[in-house]
């Protein structure tokens, strides 16, 4: 359900953005886990020059989904995903983004920290990297450790501005 809600949010933003949106970029909304062949399809797409905007759906994942998600991100994209941190354990109510726009957006059910590990950290919460950008092959991924999509239909101005910028960014 989270992925559906999240995808709906992005689709609403995309309906109002310019034609240059999503040029060479795909959105994977509210990702918890996926089948191996779907994962390899995404990895191949990245290798061939596609950029993926992967939005974590671990806020509501089971432990096994979470373990699979983390292993998958590590093996295919070299991303070290931490254990999900619940809302009440995060120091900040907001995730502060520095790219592609500077803004603050409330996290949604906590956040998934990511090892900076040479990646471009684009957002933090409570001092922890929450979103990163990483070039892989001819493409790359932007990994967001907390769902942004569900905030979009609610009219959150900063979230909409961020989503619009993410879909229109030059990767």
């Amino acid at each position, binding site marked *: 359900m989270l992925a559906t809600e999240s995808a709906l949010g992005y689709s609403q933003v995309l309906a109002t953005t310019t034609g240059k949106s999503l040029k060479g970029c795909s959105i994977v909304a509210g990702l918890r886990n996926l089948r191996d062949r779907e994962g390899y399809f995404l990895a191949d797409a990245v290798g061939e020059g596609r950029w993926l905007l992967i939005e974590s759906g671990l806020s509501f994942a089971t432990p096994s989904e979470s373990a699979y998600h983390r292993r998958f991100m590590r093996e295919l994209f070299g991303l070290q995903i931490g254990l999900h941190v619940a809302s009440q354990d995060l120091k900040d*109510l907001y995730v502060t983004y520095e790219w592609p726009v500077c803004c603050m957006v409330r996290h949604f059910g906590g956040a998934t920290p990511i090892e900076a590990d040479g990646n471009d950290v684009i957002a933090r919460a409570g001092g922890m990297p929450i979103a990163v950008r990483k070039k892989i092959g001819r493409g790359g991924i932007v990994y967001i450790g907390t769902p942004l999509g569900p905030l979009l239909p609610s009219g959150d101005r900063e979230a909409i501005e961020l989503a619009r910028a993410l879909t229109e960014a030059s990767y």
Partner: protein
Amino acid sequence: MKKSIGDSLIPQSLSLELGLELIRNAGFDGVELWLGAKPWFQMTTTDAELRVLAARVRDAGLSVSNVSNTLDWNENVSARDPRLREAAVRHIERQLEAARIFQTDAILIVAGVVTSENPYNEVYARTVDAMQQLAPKAAAAKVRIGVENCCSEQRFLLSAREFALFLDDVNSPWVGIHLDVGNIHDTGFAEQWIEIHGPRITRIHLKDVLRHRGRCGQESVYTNIFLGDNDWKAIRGALKKVNYDSWLIAEMERTYKFAPDQQFYDTSAAMSRLIENRL
């Protein structure tokens, strides 16, 4: 963000000059002037007298943060009696004129009061209509009308989304919300109101609220900043999120039994902590 406090809080024993001096010495940058609250600012006060008042504020090293009124509770734009509605429009127009003289760009009004005799649907329609009539006047004066959320006392516009729909219906950039973070009581969360209204916020009133007392019972639900149940960290975060950088105005009850001037110093210090995010 800058700090202000209402002239309505100046102790009765103090003159205007001493009151302004107290406000300045306590560390405030400005003063909120209340039409109808003090002898120096009434409906009968002339333009010339308002210019003198503006000069006194300036001489005290202060600015006027905004112009509010105490008259709306008796003369409201939503009243059934057309004479009361006309009186309400007149005093709001006077606020707009005074704001120009005081060189500030915002006024506060309480628009819409629901009672057992004045039902919600009527109040809503009349209030939207009045705001649509006043908006061009506000635009001409280049002064924004901030409709305050006195949710419980007004029994009107009780949720943030409802308030947003009201402003949508008014449909003017010159009419926004004067947000009081202490007026939400146990029906919501101030930080969410800040997020939802963002650029529509004209000014912000600060006070704290004791949620366990519910809404408008026999005991006051209001108290000084940091003494109640508002989540001030969340409020500070929301202010940063929406880039609010305008006036914060202390508006509370006189709670000090002794040394009433101390309330000004304590309030100013608390507001500085909030602005500097030292919470």
